[in-house]
């Protein structure tokens, strides 16, 4: 990690409140090119909300999101996506009634900004289809290109989810629990995929994940959210061992006294 290089993505005092509840509380963090950062924290810590603020599904109450030196805090989801922030969702989020190829083709087409083309035939843009197929090959789905997406296995849907993200040519890739709800034999496929994506040093990867073994094998850095606040940031081994993480995951300290009093 080159610390002197300008960050690709950074958040400054990023905050969102729902009523009185502060879900993400003044989180400032930089993400650099070529790194994979894992975001951990217990349930309800604000990880997915933090993702939503970066990719634009939620509007920040205060604070800023910067991307390549541009303030994107008030930008629409589509604009952020076109600028290069890709997102794979926690719950698979695809076009269920369309074929796998069409799913990928749509994402490539969005990247080429050809959506408003009204009078050419979609199927006549061969280079687009080839690009889509190339991406499907990358995630090992090319042989299922003709299938209707809703008929795919869950693991394959997750792969397609990743394919859609790659197809938009992202600089930042955000994975929200990519292995959740997957069977044991499907998990390594997705992890290998992330590992491959990581090879490209132009890419910046953000990963929300709970399985510590996964994090240890993939992450360059860990940040910990707890009750919406960023409580730890640094080298994976150190952060995992830090008391603050221990406390966030295993419970609160005052309890020990209580225990003593009662037992």
């Amino acid at each position, binding site marked *: 990690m080159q610390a002197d290089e300008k960050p690709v993505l950074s958040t400054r005092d990023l905050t969102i409140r729902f009523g009185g509840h502060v879900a993400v509380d003044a989180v400032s963090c930089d993400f650099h090119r070529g790194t994979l950062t894992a975001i951990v924290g217990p349930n309800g810590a604000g990880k997915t909300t933090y993702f939503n603020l970066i990719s634009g599904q939620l509007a920040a109450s205060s604070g800023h999101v910067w991307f390549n030196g541009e303030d994107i805090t008030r930008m629409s989801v*589509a*604009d952020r996506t076109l600028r290069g922030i890709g997102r794979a969702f926690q719950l698979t989020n*695809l076009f269920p009634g*369309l074929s796998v190829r069409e799913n990928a083709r749509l994402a490539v*087409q*969005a*990247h080429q900004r050809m959506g*408003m*083309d009204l009078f050419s035939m*979609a199927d006549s843009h061969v280079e687009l289809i080839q690009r889509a197929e190339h991406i499907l090959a990358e995630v090992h789905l090319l042989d299922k290109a003709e299938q209707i997406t809703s008929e795919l296995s869950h693991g394959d849907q997750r792969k397609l989810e990743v394919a859609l993200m790659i197809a938009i040519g992202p600089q930042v890739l955000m994975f929200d629990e990519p292995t959740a709800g997957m069977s044991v034999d499907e998990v390594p496929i997705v992890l290998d995929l992330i590992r491959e994506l990581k090879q490209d040093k132009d890419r910046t990867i953000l990963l929300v994940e709970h399985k510590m073994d996964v994090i240890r094998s993939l992450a360059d850095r860990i940040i910990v959210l707890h009750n919406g606040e960023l409580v730890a940031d640094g080298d994976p081994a150190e952060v995992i061992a830090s008391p603050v993480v221990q406390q966030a995951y295993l419970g609160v300290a005052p309890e020990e006294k209580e225990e003593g009093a009662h037992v």
Partner: protein
Amino acid sequence: MMMKLLSGDSPRSKMLSAVLLLILFGLMFAPFLFPGTRSLDTAARICIFIVLVASYDLLLGYTGVVSFAHTMFFGIGAYGTALALVNMGASYSAIVLGTVCGALVAGAFAFVIALFSLRVKAIFFAMMTLAVASAFLVLISQLSGITGGEDGLSYRIPREMTPAFKLIKEKVLGVRLNGKLITYYVVFFSSLCLFLVLLRMVNSPFGRVLQAIRENAFRAEAIGYKVVRYRSVATILSAVMAALAGSLMAIWLRYTGPATTLSMDIMVDILLMVVIGGMGSMYGAVIGAVLFLLTQSYLQDLLGILQESLGSLPVVSDVVSPERWLLWLGILFICSIYWFPKGVVGRLRGT
């Protein structure tokens, strides 16, 4: 060549291809195959409604948006042409100017409605369009100084397009080649062109985005499509197409009134045609329009016969009376939403 005309969207079923060819053939030679004023009128209406229903399907079937303002746009087109013909006299330039203005006004109206209500739930949009379209209908009926009110407008069209004009003196295949015939072919070929344009639109990159939005608007936004913008454009395009169909109607009937263009009954008819024919397939519009209009024109005769044979039974004869054909279509409509949502086209394709 053929595929290019169809924009690569083949019927994908022998049965469906056969039916479509039959319809195309039937409409193309309608004046010779089914002589008579009533059948020619039915054929022309079918042509116009195919465009109208197909343009509605662009919105409902492809984009997943329910609008009840489609007849308003149809009416705007019709009144545009009608007003031009009334005020400028029976000239071709009046037709062109009226048609263009009608389409532009329809597009502008659609833009305003989209601006107000496309960001919110589908239900909201449906209610809003229903209210606006109804108010428009009332307004047109009341501004009788301009629109002729409830009575509508009757006007002349260029002489070459009227029955009075004879192309040649002799009959061909027992049919007189007069101006009415010319008008029919103007309607037929315009409708064919408009339909092919719509078919191209839904198979263009744009059309695919609409399908993506229908399937999952949230994700469409998250791969970089501005959903509201696409929905708005689809609404505008659909409105413009409906207005053009309205202009054809104005020319064909040489009369424009609330009942023939704006009424909510027509809106319901369009809905029935789209759903029974098959949502999300332009061919569904063709099948739906043909089926519905033939039923409307001829099923009544059939039910009339049925009723006579059941004449003695009091309730039964009421239920099958020719005036109650809409009851049966309504039931068919509800059934198709539940059991074959892809309509007749879906059935024919075996999906």
